[in-house]
């Protein structure tokens, strides 16, 4: 029997990874964000899970637009770090857990979630930046095996927020019956408000983000009721990535304890957010 011990929600902006890779984290533009990460990283270093599940989306690196799976899971024993055009990030490849992947696949399928299966997958910044937010200096390997769970957030219609939240709940049930590990960490990635294209490019909505940061902890049902149009209007066309935080939240207990949160504008064109939750409230 396995137990989710924490959930980490974080933006996955490529420039956050680039700032780390290029040693720019102390620059005035970046220092507030990376200083903000500090307490979360310390807590996470003391609470290493046996395995982790990372919910993310690809950005034209591991998959293209020929096939657009709404929900998908990786079942590989290793995921190479993608070369997004100018060399791969200098971080370790990701060791997977096929045993957990197949357990999740079967249990989620039995629970009504018909996932696409990736037997091979290169993971891009959407995956590696959250790992770097968690573990800035991984050495030659990440803290534990990680299973990728992909959500289509790029091509409309994305899955609804309600469906993402329901997937998270099913994920939580599936994890509970897994006998191959004891402790599990869940990462929900993307967001917060941002829009990259169109006359509204550069849009940031701190009020919506503040509401989201509070509700993801205390009232996820309220967020699950938001429509796609609500997300695109209030968080920007790329802010809809926040639906992936709901998969993470759904896999956790009704009540969680916030360990730490960070909000910083900008990480390039994006409002960067982090929220770390302990699934074992004191």
């Amino acid at each position, binding site marked *: 029997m396995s137990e989710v011990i924490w959930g980490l929600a974080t933006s996955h902006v490529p420039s956050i990874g680039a700032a780390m890779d290029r040693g720019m984290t102390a620059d005035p533009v970046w220092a507030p964000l990376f200083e903000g990460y500090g307490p979360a990283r310390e807590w996470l270093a003391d609470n290493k899970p046996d395995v982790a599940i990372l919910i993310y989306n690809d950005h*034209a690196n591991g998959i*293209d*637009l020929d096939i657009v799976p709404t929900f998908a899971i990786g079942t590989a024993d290793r995921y190479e770090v993608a070369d*997004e055009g100018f060399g791969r990030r200098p971080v370790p490849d990701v060791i997977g857990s096929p045993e957990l992947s197949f357990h999740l696949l079967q249990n989620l399928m039995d629970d009504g979630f018909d996932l696409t299966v990736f037997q091979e997958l290169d993971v891009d910044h959407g995956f590696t930046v959250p790992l770097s937010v968690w573990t800035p200096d991984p050495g030659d390997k990440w803290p534990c095996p990680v299973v990728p769970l992909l959500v289509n957030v790029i091509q*409309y219609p994305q899955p609804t927020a309600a469906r993402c939240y329901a997937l998270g709940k099913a994920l939580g049930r599936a994890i509970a019956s897994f006998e191959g590990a004891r402790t599990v960490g869940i990462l929900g990635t993307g967001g917060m408000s941002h829009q*990259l294209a169109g006359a509204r490019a550069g849009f*940031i909505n701190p009020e919506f983000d503040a509401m989201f940061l509070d509700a993801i902890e205390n009232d996820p049902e309220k967020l699950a009721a938001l429509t*796609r149009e609500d997300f*695109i209007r209030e968080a920007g066309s790329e802010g809809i990535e926040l639906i992936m935080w709901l998969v993470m939240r759904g896999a956790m207990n009704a009540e969680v304890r916030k360990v730490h949160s960070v909000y910083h504008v900008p990480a*390039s064109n994006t409002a960067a957010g982090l929220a770390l939750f302990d699934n074992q409230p004191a």
Partner: protein
Amino acid sequence: MTSRISPDLPGTYVFDGPTSRRGLRMNKLFMSLRSEAARADFLADEPGYCARFGLTDDQTEAVLGRDWQAMLDLGGSIFYIYKLAMMDGLSMQYLGGVFTGMSEADFKAAMLAGGRTDV
């Protein structure tokens, strides 16, 4: 009867199915530019490379002229268009400036000042 279409929000591109279908060949070209060999092929003969991927005349013109706005209008996904911009040494802030009628410096300054909260 038609199915429900994506929302129409001012100043916002919603990359929906029909848009993706329109831009598929062009987006595939952009994704190919991840490899150095493909970038060399492209730079050696841009019109030929566009023809090989089956771009329309409008799309070819947009790509050759680096008309970023037209690429969006012709079905480009910003994540894919960005591959071409990166090859040209341009940033997402540069593109943000193009889309909003600002210089890259002004767009960056607007982001550093807290982002465009009034649009």
